[in-house]
C-alpha cells in the first residue's frame, strides 16, 4: 500500500505541474506584470527546485492541508470534507443496490444452467456493459423522475429521508452499471459452487435446497461479489463523478468539474489525490471484509 500511496502523490504532483501556463497568470488575471508574477511565484513556492516543491507538497499532505482554493480562498480539505456525505451515500447506496439486483438474478440464473431464465440473465451483461453512465442517468430521470415522478430528478435534500430519496436515482444509475459486471462473475462462481463436492455432500445429507442456498451458496457468493467489487472500485468511484453531474448532486465530483472550469489548480489537485486515496482505502476495506467472510483468507 505504501508504494502505491507514494506513486499516487508523485503522479498527482506531476499532473498539476504539467499544466501549461503560470498559476500566477490565473491568480492575477489581467493585472499580471512580470514583477507581480515573480512575487506570486515566490509566495506559492513555484520558483524553488522541483524536488523541494514535491517534498513541501508531501509535508503539507501529512499536516492535513491540501492548499486553499484560488477562487474563494477556502481550504481544499474542508471543501472536500464538506461534500463527504453526498459522495459517501452515493457510493454505499450504489454498491448495496447493485448487490440487491445482481445476487437474486445470479441465483435464479445459476439454479438451472441453460434454461430460459439463465439465458435471459446472461444477456444482461452483454447489453448492460455497453450503456453509458450519463445515458442511464438521463433515462432514469425520464422514467422515474418525470414520467412517473416518484423521485426527485436532482439536487440533494436537507434532511436524511429527503437525501435518501434524492440519492435513489443516482445510486440506481451506479447499480445498473455495476450489476452486469457482478452478474457475470457471480453466475459463474455460483455454478461452480453448486457443482462442488460440499454442496453434493450437503444434498446427500438430505439438507433442503433453501438451506443449502442460504448456508453454502450465499456466503461463497458474497465472497465472490466482494472480490469483484474490489477489482472494479476505481471504475465505480470514477463513474460517481459523472453520475453526480447528471443529477446535479453537489458532491466531490462536481467540485472537481467546477474547479476545472475556473482553472482552480489546488482543488483539482486535492480532489484527484482524494479520489485515489479513497480507492486505496476501499480496497483495504474489501480485503478486511474478505478476511471476515472467508476463513481461508489470512491477512498479512
Amino acid at each position, binding site marked *: 500500500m505504501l*508504494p502505491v500511496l507514494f506513486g499516487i502523490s508523485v503522479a498527482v504532483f506531476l499532473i498539476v505541474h504539467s*499544466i501549461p501556463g503560470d498559476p500566477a497568470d490565473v491568480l492575477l488575471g489581467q493585472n499580471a506584470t512580470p514583477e507581480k508574477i515573480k512575487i506570486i511565484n515566490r509566495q506559492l513556492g513555484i520558483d524553488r527546485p522541483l524536488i523541494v516543491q514535491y517534498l513541501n507538497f508531501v509535508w503539507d499532505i501529512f499536516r492535513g492541508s491540501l492548499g486553499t482554493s484560488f477562487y474563494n480562498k477556502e481550504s481544499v480539505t474542508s471543501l472536500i470534507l464538506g461534500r463527504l456525505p453526498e459522495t459517501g451515500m452515493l457510493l454505499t447506496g450504489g454498491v448495496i443496490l447493485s448487490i440487491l439486483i445482481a445476487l437474486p438474478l445470479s441465483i435464479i440464473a445459476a439454479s438451472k444452467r441453460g434454461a430460459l431464465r439463465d439465458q435471459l440473465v446472461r444477456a444482461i451483461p452483454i*447489453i448492460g456493459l455497453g450503456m453509458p453512465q450519463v*445515458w442511464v442517468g438521463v433515462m432514469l*430521470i425520464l422514467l422515474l423522475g418525470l414520467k412517473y415522478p416518484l423521485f426527485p430528478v436532482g439536487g440533494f435534500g436537507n434532511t436524511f429521508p429527503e437525501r435518501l430519496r434524492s440519492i435513489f436515482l443516482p445510486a440506481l444509475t451506479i447499480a445498473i452499471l455495476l450489476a452486469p459486471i457482478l452478474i457475470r462473475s457471480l453466475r459463474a462462481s455460483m455454478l461452480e459452487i453448486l457443482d462442488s463436492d460440499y454442496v453434493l455432500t450437503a444434498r446427500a445429507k438430505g439438507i433442503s435446497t433453501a438451506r443449502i442456498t442460504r448456508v453454502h451458496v450465499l456466503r461463497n457468493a458474497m465472497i465472490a461479489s466482494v472480490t469483484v467489487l474490489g477489482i472494479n472500485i*476505481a471504475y465505480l468511484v470514477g463513474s460517481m463523478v459523472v453520475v453526480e453531474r447528471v443529477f446535479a448532486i453537489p458532491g466531490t465530483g462536481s467540485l472537481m468539474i467546477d474547479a476545472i472550469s475556473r482553472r482552480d489548480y489546488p482543488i483539482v489537485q486535492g480532489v484527484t489525490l482524494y479520489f485515489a486515496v479513497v*480507492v486505496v482505502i476501499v480496497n483495504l476495506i474489501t480485503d478486511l471484509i474478505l478476511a471476515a467472510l472467508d476463513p481461508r483468507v489470512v491477512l498479512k
Partner: protein
Amino acid sequence: MKSSKTLYVGMGLLGALVLAAVFAPLITSYDPNEQDLVNTLLGPNSRHWLGTDPLGRDVFTRLIYGARVDLAIGLLAVILPYIIGVSLGLLTGWLGGRTDSVVMRIVDTVIAFPFYVLAIALVFIFGPGIKSIIVAITLVGWVAYCRIVRANVLVAKEQDYVHAARLTGLPASRILRRHLLPNVISQSIVFAMSDIVLSILAIVSLGYLGLGVPVPTAEWGSMIQEGQSYIMDQWWLATIPGLMVVYVGFSLSLIGDGLVARLER
C-alpha cells in the same frame, strides 16, 4: 458452429454501422452542422427521419456522423495502450525480478486512479479535445493489457517449448516475438473488444460533461447532453444516441464472445 455465428452476427452489426458512418454523405443529404432555425425540435417525419434538434439540425444525420467520431476515436484510443501494454507485459513477465516489481508498482498506482478523475484532470492539462481523450485513455488503458499478458507469460515461459527454444540458443528477442507472443496474445485481443466499448463510453461521458470532442462536431455524448433539457417532449433526442452506444457495445461483445470460443478451441 455456434461460436462463429456469434462472431459473424457481431461483425455484421458493427460492419453495418461502420459502412453507414463511412458512406454518411450518400445516406443523408443534410449537413450535420447545418442549422435551420425555422424548423427546430421537429418530431420524426418524412424529411427528417428522427426529427430535428433545438438548432434545427437533422438528428439522423448527426447520429451517423457521430458514429464516425465515436467509433474512430474509440478504436484509435485502444491501439496505443494495446501496443504499450502488450510489449511491457511481455517484457516484465519475461525478465521478472526488479523490472517486474517496478512496473507492477506503477500498474498498482495507475489502477488506484479512478479513470474519469484522471481523464478529467488530463483534459484540464491539455484542454478538451480528441488529443486529451486519447492521452487519458492511453495512460490508464495499457495497465489491463500489461497485467493480462504478463500473467500469461509467467505461465508460458516455464513450458517446454520455451525451454527448448532457449536451449537451442535463440536470442531472447526472437523467443519473445516468435514463440511467446503468439501464445499469450489471444486473451488480450478479446479484452480489446470490451476495451473499445469502454473507451467509447469514456468519449460519450466526457462529451456529456463538455470535456470531450468540442462542439458543434456531432458526437453521441454531447447529443445526450443537449437532449436532456428537452427530455419531456422530445425524449428521443437524448434516448437514441445512447441506444447507438448500446448497439455498438452489443455487437462488440458478440464479437468478443465469438473470439473467446474460437481461440479456446
